[in-house]
């Protein structure tokens, strides 16, 4: 569990690093996460100059390009506040790979290390820093949770999403087979190896649907793009008008369930 830094203490202010995927493709999820955090009495700061954590270049084998992009993000969080990221994948990049990326640059390395301890994945922050508890106001439903590989293996926060959902009394969390297996997104992998990626997401969607859950929730929009994109494609192929596997970011689900 990632609870160092401000663990246990409720901060008055935080930075929100939305990630480029949320900013451009899932803005509603970002807004819902911010609304939830503000409802907890926290001032949320959104540095306007933020772009992308640099992971796409980093994992594709272009550390120089990743460094240029990451160096820019390093300058955005001057106050000693937690930086909350609504993605295990991008949080993992900033927390674990920034210090490695700047290993040969003493000044930036120090900045990266100072930033690293302040990086929190969204669900981890809710559970382990805020002790988030909120009354479930929704009707009974069954959902299935997909946890990203980065959240699970790099950030070690694979339990917090489930914890948040189980605290909602009307929500039953279904268990899919091969839960810990990757959905097949992998950034540029989905483009460079489309056949294997396609097979992986096909199996993932099948296992999620087999639970009979009404929707899938995840704390990573990269996985959601892949999973929901395939589910919608399949619906289209098979002539279904309504989505057989709707889904959303866990922040949107939590906010809706706990709002009047």
């Amino acid at each position, binding site marked *: 569990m990632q609870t160092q830094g401000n663990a246990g203490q409720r901060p008055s202010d935080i930075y929100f690093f939305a990630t480029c995927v949320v900013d451009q493709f899932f803005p509603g999820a970002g807004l819902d996460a911010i609304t939830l955090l503000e409802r907890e009495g926290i001032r949320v700061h959104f540095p306007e100059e933020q*772009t992308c954590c640099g992971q*796409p270049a980093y994992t594709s084998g*272009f550390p120089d390009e*990743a460094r240029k992009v990451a160096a820019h993000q390093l300058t955005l969080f001057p106050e000693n506040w937690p930086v909350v990221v609504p993605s295990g994948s991008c949080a993992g990049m900033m927390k674990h790979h920034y210090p490695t990326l700047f290993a040969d640059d003493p000044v930036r390395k120090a900045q990266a290390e100072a930033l690293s301890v302040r990086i929190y994945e969204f669900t981890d922050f809710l559970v382990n820093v805020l002790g988030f508890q909120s009354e479930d106001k929704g009707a009974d439903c069954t959902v299935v949770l997909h946890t990203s590989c980065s959240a699970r293996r790099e950030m070690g926060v694979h339990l917090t999403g489930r914890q948040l959902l189980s605290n909602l009394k009307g929500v039953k969390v279904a268990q899919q087979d091969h839960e810990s297996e990757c959905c097949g*997104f992998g950034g540029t992998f989905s483009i460079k190896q489309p*056949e294997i990626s396609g097979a992986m*997401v096909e199996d993932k969607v099948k296992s999620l649907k087999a639970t009979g859950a009404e929707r899938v929730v995840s704390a990573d929009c990269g996985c959601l793009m892949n999973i929901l994109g395939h589910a919608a494609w399949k619906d289209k192929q098979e002539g279904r008008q309504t989505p057989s596997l709707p889904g959303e970011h866990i922040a949107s689900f939590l906010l809706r369930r706990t709002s009047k």
Partner: protein
Amino acid sequence: MSEHAMNFMPSEGFRARSKEVVENPFLRQSFRGAMDFLINKRITQFPSAEELETLRTLGEQIRQYNLGKLPTLLVQLEESLTRNGIQVHWAETPDEANAIILGICQKHSAKLMVKGKSMVSEEIELNHACEAAGIEAMESDMGEYIVQLAGEKPSHIIMPAIHKTKEEIARLFHEKVEGVDYTDNVDELIQIGRKVLREKFLVADIGLSGVNFAVAETGTLCLVENEGNGRLSTTAPPVHIAITGIEKIVEKLDHVPPLLSLLTRSATGQNISTYFNMISGPRKADEKDGPTEVHLVLLDNGRTQAYADEQLRKTLQCIRCGACMNHCPVYTRIGGHAYGTTYPGPIGKIISPHMLGLDATKTMATASTLCGACGEVCPVKIPIPDLLMRLREESFSEPHVAWAMVYRSPSLYKVATWLGSRFNWLTPSNQGPWTSVRTPLKPAPKRLRDLLKERA
């Protein structure tokens, strides 16, 4: 000298080969079932996560300690083995290794070599070299025997014939083994193989085996196996030739038990293998059996290249358990043959570039989501995803200049994403590989930063 496969380009055709498997529902289901079986067997061997973690750390430390002293230990190993009467040979390349082995065979006018399971012998394509030299090389591990009969290569380093169903094996035995009627009864199939092989052990001139651990201090070659064919290959024929990569060395016997435990539990989910052989020399004057000559061939084949780099050296920690394959979502989808390399799966992706060159293997480095499942189960904690990223870094030279320009510059980012959201109706519906199984990606009409401004 025979032609071996060192000139081939596994990267070429990788996508076509994987596509073929992925589109075969029968194979997909069969690989998935086999991997699930192995994953579940392993889980039962590690009921305590804490014990597993302690043991993995110990395994990592033992391997790193011994790799740290590798040059000294190799000298020590040669001395100890020589003292024990085992003849030591050094091979830098597969060609050299084959020449050494064939040289020994020719000295003994050998006609038949019976082989215990050895991935290094696959790495040097020894069977082809033997065939070219007129020596029959016969695999005695059941899985290896099956793939040899089928004219194939192993698709998994521990379970070479995991891609075959019992019906396929039944047909193969019926067609290729004299006087065998079709049966898909597994016990009967095993008995058929066993009968053929038993006769060969008795008449073979040479027994060949791999090595799991070579102990420098005592000059002992340790061999892990389940079928007894390893013991027969190393004791029945008059000459035993062992072959191993130079990295399989440990300094002390004390180092073996933790690694052995990690190996069998991670590989096949067994507490211990059925056989564990410790070979410390040829037959002595007062002994009744055992080979009269024992040789060890130590192969480099790119290992010193990996060794020279602190990060890449971790690749050599591998004890060849295959757990990374069993847990890999990519291997599970495509099986071992699609990789086109001797060692498939995650470990294959990081070791093959040292053997075949980066150019020949660079596509393989892209065939990973970096999900981390391999690193998580590796019994000696090889950071496989980090090593894959390192290889990606070294494989690709054309930089993504435009991408970096946009994302390092807030103003360009703002313009580019504003255009994307405002003109999102212009998003193409055909987005290449992405839309082959997914709906198109379309930027939202308003970005998060726009929604935040509106709200304020």
